[in-house]
């Protein structure tokens, strides 16, 4: 598994590599904070250095109570006040209420994957996906964050700060990408088990590309139509016979399970297993065969009963669902 996986990249540090207006000002703040903090540390170290090694007259000056009042109180008050006003203002700006015209996506944190539902203008679910969220560039997108089981946290650092997904609550997070591309993230609230392997990707498209993508996603996969090719048809049989439809839904078939990720367009996803495997026939077959070995504790059982041929067939079928 040495292929780099599309998604969260560590370098440049995503927090300091903003890609939208909900991350940019935070990046500016971060650099300012670093600057101030380093400057203060240097001042303190210089004072300590003088206290330890400096000439007597300098040490006498630092050894008085005036230093406490000045350096210890007056100077911090000024700096902290300025920072606080900046911070409070930016907080208010980043948590402005959404405009009713903004696109809405509902992401529900599950153990250990992300259920993504695209909402229509009335706020109803139009169609579902999993572990990837597609958005148009250049406009704020409203993420409605919920949790199905335990507390999770939605974090795509290049696009903005994180927001927790708490059972019984719906939290709102607004994010915006300025350029098309993939923006990786990871669950940031310990949710037990393989919390470490709960990644996600936000894919930003130009508005035209997004409209096309959305139309394609809302409909059943075109791959379903071309079911004449043999492995795909055989794979569809394996899927039905193994009862996969009890947990997974495929739009356009009678598989309608809600327990696991929607597989209607799984072939077009960039990763599998919530951002931990590249998506190709081989990795998909391996996942179905024994996902427990890859992501211990996840809710999908292993399928040792499937033969190699069956695995190849069913993975070919699923990969065809683009």
């Amino acid at each position: 598994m040495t292929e780099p996986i599309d998604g969260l990249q560590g370098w440049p540090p995503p927090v300091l590599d903003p890609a939208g207006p909900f991350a940019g000002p935070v990046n500016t703040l971060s650099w300012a904070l670093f600057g101030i903090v380093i400057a203060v540390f240097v001042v303190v170290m210089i004072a300590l250095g003088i206290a330890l090694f400096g000439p007597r007259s300098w040490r006498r000056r630092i050894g008085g109570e005036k230093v406490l009042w000045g350096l210890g109180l007056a100077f911090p008050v000024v700096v902290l006040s300025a920072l606080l006003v900046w911070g409070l203002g930016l907080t208010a700006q980043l948590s402005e209420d959404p405009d009713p015209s903004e696109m809405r996506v509902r992401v529900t944190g599950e153990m250990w994957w992300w259920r993504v539902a695209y909402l229509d203008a009335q706020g109803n679910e139009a169609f579902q996906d999993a572990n990837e969220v597609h958005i148009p560039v250049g406009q704020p997108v409203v993420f409605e964050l919920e949790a199905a089981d335990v507390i999770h946290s939605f974090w795509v650092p290049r696009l903005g700060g994180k927001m927790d997904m708490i059972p019984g609550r719906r939290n709102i997070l607004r994010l915006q990408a300025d350029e098309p591309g993939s923006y990786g993230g990871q669950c940031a609230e310990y949710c037990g088990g393989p919390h470490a392997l709960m990644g996600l990707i936000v894919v930003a498209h130009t508005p035209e590309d997004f409209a096309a993508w959305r139309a394609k996603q809302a409909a059943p996969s075109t791959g379903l139509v071309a079911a004449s090719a043999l492995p795909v048809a055989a794979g569809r049989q394996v899927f039905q016979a193994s009862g996969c439809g009890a947990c997974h839904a495929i739009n356009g078939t009678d598989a309608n399970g809600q327990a696991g990720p929607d597989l209607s367009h799984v072939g077009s996803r960039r990763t599998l297993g919530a951002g931990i495997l590249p998506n190709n026939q081989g990795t998909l077959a391996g996942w179905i065969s024994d996902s427990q070995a890859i992501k211990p504790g996840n809710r999908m059982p292993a399928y040792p009963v499937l033969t190699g041929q069956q695995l190849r067939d069913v993975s070919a079928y699923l990969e065809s669902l683009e």
Partner: protein
Amino acid sequence: MTEAKSETGFDPELYKRFPTSGERPEGELEKLEKIWCGPKGWEWITVINNNYVGVYYIGAAMLFFVLAGILSLLMRTQLALPLNGFLEQETYNQLFTMHGTIMMFLFAVPAVEALGVLLLPQMLGARDLPFPRLSAYAFWAYLIGGLAFFCSIFFGLAPNGGWFMYPPLTSMTYSPGINADFWLLGIGFIEISAIAGAIEIIVGVLKNRAPGMTLDKMPIFAWGMLIFACMIIIAFPSVILATTLMELERAFGWPFFDALKGGDPLLWQHLFWFFGHPEVYIIFLPAAAAMSTMVAAVARTPLVGYRLVVLAMIATGFISFGVWSHHMFTTGMPSISIGFFSSASMAVSLPAGIQVFAWIATVAAGKMRFSTPGLFVLGSLTVFVMGGLTGVMVAMVPFDWQAHDSYFIVAHLHYVLIGGMVFPFFAAIYFWTPMSSSRPLSERLGKWVFWLMFAGMHIAFLPMHLTGLMGMPRRVYTYLPDRGWEIPNMISTVGAFLFAVGVLIWIVDMIRNFRPFGPRDAGNVFDSGGLEWLPTGLYSTRSIPIVTTRYPLWEQPNLARDVEAGRYFLPDAPTGDRETLVTSPLNAEPQYLQRIPRPSGWHVWAAVFTAGFFLLLTIQAYWASAVSGVLAVYCVFMWGWLLDRPRIQPTVDIGAGIQVPTYMSGPRSHGWWAMVITLVVAGMILVMTAFSYVFLWSRNPLDWIAPPQTGLIIIATMYAAALVAVRASNAVLVADRPRSPQLATALMLGALALAAGAWWIDLTGWWATGLTPQVSGQGATVFYFLSWQGFFVGTSAIMGLFVLLRFLTGQVEAKRPATFELIGLYLAYTAGQGLISVLLTRLFPGG
């Protein structure tokens, strides 16, 4: 110029009689030695002298430090490489939970408490702590419970929900095993330990100082411990409540945190962090106070800005209670609310800055020596400042929205905890070992210990700031390759092992040089000015000095010689037993002579059975747990049975002809203070319960049903009547009429009956409405109020039994009202708590 006003009416002219002249009588010193003799054989377990218990306590705390440190090495080995198979997922999840839990609960708080136990009496000129069996009990419960808790790892039963154990992950649904119960009940006795220690320290610092040691002259360490103890009293009740509620939810389905049934996961977070944030300042303040002491000593100059440092510690103590939701900035709370917490978090760094500059000013005013304590002090200052500065960064909400729950926070918390507590603690070990050991620790090895720990610490944790900004969340057992996280993780792992080598060398140093409990100690190796460096025996100092400055050994000439010759207070043991002086809180004017008990086994057995109660409950051995609980109560009963006995002399000569009473009751007595502090703890639990009730209502106001329509008036009247009866009982007793004891006892038992009856009517009233504890947030909180009140009624009944037995054995008399008063306080509190509970649950929201 105003003359200092006397606080108690004590005439300060009397101090002029000291130091007394002439030889002390023959055999006086031998008598002291015999009364305070050290343990032999089994007595090593029942010993209560702080010189022993303090060393045991620190030893246990350092044992847990090393154990939790080993866990961290295992974790860092796993994280050195991506997708490493060194530890399984479940094992790692248990180890990181245990690392945090053990470090925070079994190492950090007990270690600083232990430092107080070991140092405070000697520093204050007292012979021992005011309730030595209580601190010994706290120690044994903590040791037994802590070791059992640690052993859960070997059975795969260690908790795995993170050290702050958020529900719903830790609810029965998602954590069905007893792992979470180990945590909940496992820290139960640590909570008890901490509170017992806090009571001890508050009373000891305020009531057992050497005469003349006014607040202004009190050692800065004593100030730090006082504030620490007060913070424990206010903060710990919140976690006691939280753990109790979660256990009730797990065991019986009372939905405090279950959103599906009317609870809220955020309630846990509020309750936990209201404790959890002050907890880190609880850990930091004593270490900072020790820093203030050691900086002055090592630089050989008085602390610059002593009064400002005192104020800084007080301000830190207060303001740290207003920042808890900075751990919850990402939970979706309204921006204005989190704004308040951000503001307070910025404000709390101001007093910390004052302390840091006081240390720097002190270094400047003196001549710093680069001895091992000096190095650790300087290292600590550096590391703590770095940690504090990243703290200011994460106090800014937008930055925290990126940094929260990432490795940036892991970096920040280790910098402040290692810089703010671990390094000062190692400095303290090197600094104060000569006081307790016949050999000081090695300066040569000590320098290796310091540099390895200092370098290792930075190498391990500095990269983590970057790792967090690179997107790595915390509490992950592995990570994917090709993200760039490999290099900083590997560096961190190397640093961790380097740090561990430093600790290993320290262990070697301890084995080679630490020789406690011997006849002599190594002496004032660092030439410090505090009273703890007077020559001492097991009886502490030969006589209790009059203190006139902050640094008595530096500024009061011939003090050591005069103290040793018995020329001050209490050079002997006038009642023939262990004693110390009780003095007034502000001016330390002598008030009375306190008798300190001799060792006996009851407190040890009480500790064993207390730990047993919690542990057996965890493994669901319910009958055995109940038996253990009953036995614990019995042992406490027997422990207290010998208290408040007749005295032979009503007053004694404590030196130079000054007479003080040997018995005290009422608001001046140490017993009264201990009971009041305990009731403050109970009151805080009540306040947090009320918060929980209102909070859950605000989340689900439509689920609330109407309260019982009748009963409020009669319940309130009965509780009020109970209060009156308690008052009357005490008044009757001290009136000293012929039948006073009978009447007073009857009134006390009558008050108990009224409170019990009121509670019963309240309980049955709610039961009749059909409300059950499982059905809603209202049910859970209302029945929790009732259960908590029931617990108080029950314990009041046990105390009533105690009173009755004392009456039947003729111990109830007007001259000795102390026990009656204390039980009266408890009973009055019970009635008051019942009254508040019934008013809240029936009048808000009403309907």
